[in-house]
């Protein structure tokens, strides 16, 4: 009877509840993928079938091929890659420079600046987006990648907070040794602080990349040229144009989150730790 201890039942119960939550988490993804392997007719079967009719049959990947070749999603993914990478690199530059100044230097206006930065993070994008839109129109930046990159590049509040914390935790003795060698402040930042904060920088890069990949409002406002579309705006326009072709729509949806899922699976440690410790988003 040794197996029937209360601990065993408690664990069994835990696994049961965990499975219920896991199923709820997976189901929308699963249903999405199942639908992409159905033929045009099978989508509208009543009741819906669990096993897709094209599974392991010729034509299984047809909707994916159609989405990637006829509907330009390769291009959209490339655009999103480019914009998200540039914006994330920008956030690293801005946040690491500012985080270093806040962590290691004393100057007039330090606390006011920091307070302003903190306070403006609470301001919803919808409040600043109208003036921002008019500014972008004035600059003739509509229908370019710049409005998707530059604001994100320069407004790096959470990254600044995170790197300020990280830099503050690095022992000062390290920089004193460099000072004896006659290093400048910028050299200390470049050759001591940046290399030491590689894990934090990786986290920040990944989170900034994901956030920019998922950005919807700015592409909606700034991009109308179909060659410049990012995946989010590509998906929504696709939905408006081909509303009932669910196998195609959902193939496009799968294709557009696949890069994120791959990044998440391989770099989960960095992403989750960064978010859990700072509430960063």
């Amino acid at each position: 009877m040794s197996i029937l201890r209360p601990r065993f039942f408690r664990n069994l119960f835990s696994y049961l509840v965990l499975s219920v939550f896991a199923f709820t988490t997976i189901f929308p993804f699963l249903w999405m993928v199942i639908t992409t392997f159905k033929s045009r007719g099978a989508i509208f079967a009543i009741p819906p079938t669990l096993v897709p009719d094209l599974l392991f049959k010729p034509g299984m990947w047809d909707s994916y091929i159609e989405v990637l070749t006829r509907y330009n999603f390769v291009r959209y993914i490339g655009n999103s890659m480019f914009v998200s990478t540039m914006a994330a690199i920008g956030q690293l530059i801005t946040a690491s420079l500012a985080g270093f100044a806040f962590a290691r230097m004393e100057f007039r206006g330090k606390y006011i600046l920091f307070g302003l930065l903190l306070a403006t993070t609470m301001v919803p994008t919808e409040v600043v987006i109208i003036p921002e839109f008019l500014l972008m129109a004035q600059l003739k930046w509509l229908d370019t990648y710049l409005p998707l990159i530059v604001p994100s590049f320069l407004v790096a509040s959470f990254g600044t907070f995170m790197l300020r914390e990280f830099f503050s935790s690095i022992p000062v003795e390290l920089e004193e040794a460099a000072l004896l060698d006659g290093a400048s402040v910028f050299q200390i930042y470049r050759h001591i602080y940046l290399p030491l904060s590689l894990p934090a920088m990786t986290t920040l890069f990944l989170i900034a990349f994901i956030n920019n990949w998922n950005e919807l409002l700015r592409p909606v406002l700034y991009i109308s040229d179909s060659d410049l579309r990012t995946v989010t705006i590509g998906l929504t326009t696709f939905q408006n144009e081909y509303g009932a072709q669910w196998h195609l729509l959902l193939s496009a949806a799968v294709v557009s989150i696949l890069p994120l899922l791959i990044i998440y699976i391989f770099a989960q440690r960095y992403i989750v730790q960064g978010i859990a410790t700072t509430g960063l988003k």
Partner: protein
Amino acid sequence: MRYRKITPYLFLLPMIVGLFVFRLGPIAAAVFASFTNWNVATAPVFIGLGNFRELFASQYFWLVLRNTVVFILIFTPGVMILAFIMAVLVNQKLKGIAFFRGLFFMPYVTTMVAIAMAFNWIFATRFGVLNSILTRWFNVSNPPAWLSSPTYALIAIAIVAIWKYSGFLMMIFLAGLQSIPADLYEAAEIDGANRLQQIIQITLPLLSPVTFFAFIITVIDAFRTFDVTYAMTGGGPNFASTTLAYYVYQNAFIYQRMGYASAISMILLILVAAATFVSFKLKDRLVTYAL
């Protein structure tokens, strides 16, 4: 470390430019614009409180405000309770628990637009799997037309938002749970407290600073809801699922009323600030730092 007076500002230059050009400047411009009558084609005309007077007299504004409150009232407790349960579950020492943690967090890193499409299909009235299950397994004879129903559209987008964000809050709660010393639970076990008693007497009070932080970011997030509305209902039917942030977008970029939309964005800003302020005022009464 020795440096010239100007050096810190050089380091801060990109951030300061961003702060003034993309944050403070636009906020100031939005305040100004909220007192003007302004469509994109013509120059803004100062009309004092005209926009606000029009807002408070508009039945749509009150409907949108009501929707925002309803959304917050569904979303905030929903996501916080689920996230707390998930955090307690994945805080156990069980085989394969890291897999569950990773899985529960996954929706948070995926694109809302893509998720919204999957849910559009699940919620579809005739061919959707949800209504099929409701009619077949639960004998519901007239399942709702979720996304095109004035009653259910807002609830549907709240459910999707809860599904997407609970994994994120779970991680915040989990970090909090792991900072509670294990010997407190051991002592409670010796005193004969069961699992539920331990959660109520130890976990909840000691987790309250984290819960407070989670509450603030959840409410602020709820005020910002845009993506899920855009991709699922477009605010419809007839504004039944429009919340404040989405109403700003509609007025500015669909109806081209920049001044009026700016006035709505001011209401949004004031509500977010007020919610944050009130929460911090109540903080000391609600938060326990030690037992």
